[in-house]
């Protein structure tokens, strides 16, 4: 444990400062090339640089390479390769809008390095009841997990700062869970995700100077999913991610098909006081944000804080569950 402190500190410093220092020049570069999009939740025509995925993936790769230099594990290699593949998939989608099926299928393929490197344990651990061996089913779980976590984080990237702020809370909760279940190496490998998200949040928080885009959101989600698999904490990761899972669940249960989020009607409207309220259009999808503003119009910042409170609540549930992993009925 003591010998892991130096790699942990070094990788966290690299993760934070690479993103913190690289994002401002990236914003200037994107603005210069007119790679900006309108912030739809602002009254004026505010243009925001996009995508910020490049600084996110650079921070993740740099910090995980530092860790690999110390630990040389296949699990870290799997995190680097799968997360990088997810970035490329997101970047393609940022530059050219692809169909609704492109990302899930491509992300499923991006999960194959985890299988190829054997960086998983097919025993699925549940709290209180122990583990279950599902060798064949677990391969399917890996293939499904990366598209689910990637698209789940992508679908919650709807307001200034929400995706990165949510990722800070969820990945920090997951790191604590990994420490509790005494998987120290993967716990340390997950900390860079906390610091990359935190550094990016500085520029993504309201009012955003940069949006992560699909390349950033898929990078966040794919790394989170890969950590869950290689760390053997799939259930804990799912619990910490519950608010984003609810968002995807509500969306899919109202739209009833897999579709590109840019092709659907906006579920919220902007009031003259610059507050978000639920649309009266019954054909618009039900989302987490729509539910939050259903009874009362709220500002973008207020909605973001409600989502963060939900993330903290589910993070606490995940930590309680991690303690329950050591208890057997």
């Amino acid at each position: 444990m003591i010998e892991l402190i130096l790699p942990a500190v070094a990788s966290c410093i690299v993760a934070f400062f690479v993103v913190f220092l690289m994002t401002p020049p990236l914003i200037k570069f994107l603005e210069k090339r007119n790679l900006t999009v309108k912030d739809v939740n602002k009254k004026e025509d505010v243009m925001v640089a996009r995508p910020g995925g490049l600084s996110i993936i650079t921070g993740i790769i740099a910090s995980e390479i530092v860790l690999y230099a110390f630990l040389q594990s296949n699990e870290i290699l799997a995190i680097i390769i799968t997360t990088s593949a997810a970035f490329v998939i997101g970047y393609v989608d940022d530059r050219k809008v692809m169909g609704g099926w492109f990302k899930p299928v491509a992300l499923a393929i991006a999960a194959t390095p985890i299988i190829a490197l054997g960086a998983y344990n097919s025993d699925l651990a549940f709290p209180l009841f122990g583990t279950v061996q599902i060798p064949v089913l677990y391969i399917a779980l890996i293939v499904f997990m990366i598209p689910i976590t990637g698209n789940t984080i992508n679908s919650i990237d709807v307001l200034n700062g929400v995706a990165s702020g949510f990722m800070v809370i969820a990945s920090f909760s997951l790191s604590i869970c990994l420490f509790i279940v005494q998987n120290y190496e993967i716990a340390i490998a997950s900390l860079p995700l906390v610091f990359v998200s935190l550094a990016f949040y500085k520029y993504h928080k309201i009012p955003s100077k940069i949006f992560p885009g699909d390349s950033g959101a898929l990078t966040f989600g794919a790394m989170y999913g890969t950590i869950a698999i290689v760390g053997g904490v799939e259930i804990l990761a799912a619990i910490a991610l519950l608010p984003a899972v609810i968002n995807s669940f509500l969306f899919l249960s109202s739209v009833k098909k897999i579709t590109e989020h840019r092709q659907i009607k906006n579920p919220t409207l902007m009031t003259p006081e610059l507050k978000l309220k639920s649309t009266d259009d019954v054909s618009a999808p039900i989302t987490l944000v729509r539910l939050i503003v259903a009874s009362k119009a709220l500002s973008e910042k207020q909605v973001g804080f409600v989502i963060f409170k939900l993330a903290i609540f589910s993070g606490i549930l995940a930590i309680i569950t991690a303690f329950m992993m050591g208890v057997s009925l």
Partner: protein
Amino acid sequence: MKFGLFGFLFVMWILILVGGGITVMILGPFSISGFGELDWFIGSVIKAIVAIILVVIWILILSKLKNLIFRKEIKS
């Protein structure tokens, strides 16, 4: 509304714990024999089918709960 969302999260958590228990108790000890080398594969396929059925039941329960908790708010 906000308590509704926290309640929904809590119910999802309970369902995960209960689903985990059922998975371990039903799928864990399950094994099949009489097919030779295919025993392991057929056993896994059956486990996969049972797991998918459990997930479908989980989604159906959540759909009902969603309507129950958010009936007033969801105008669709």
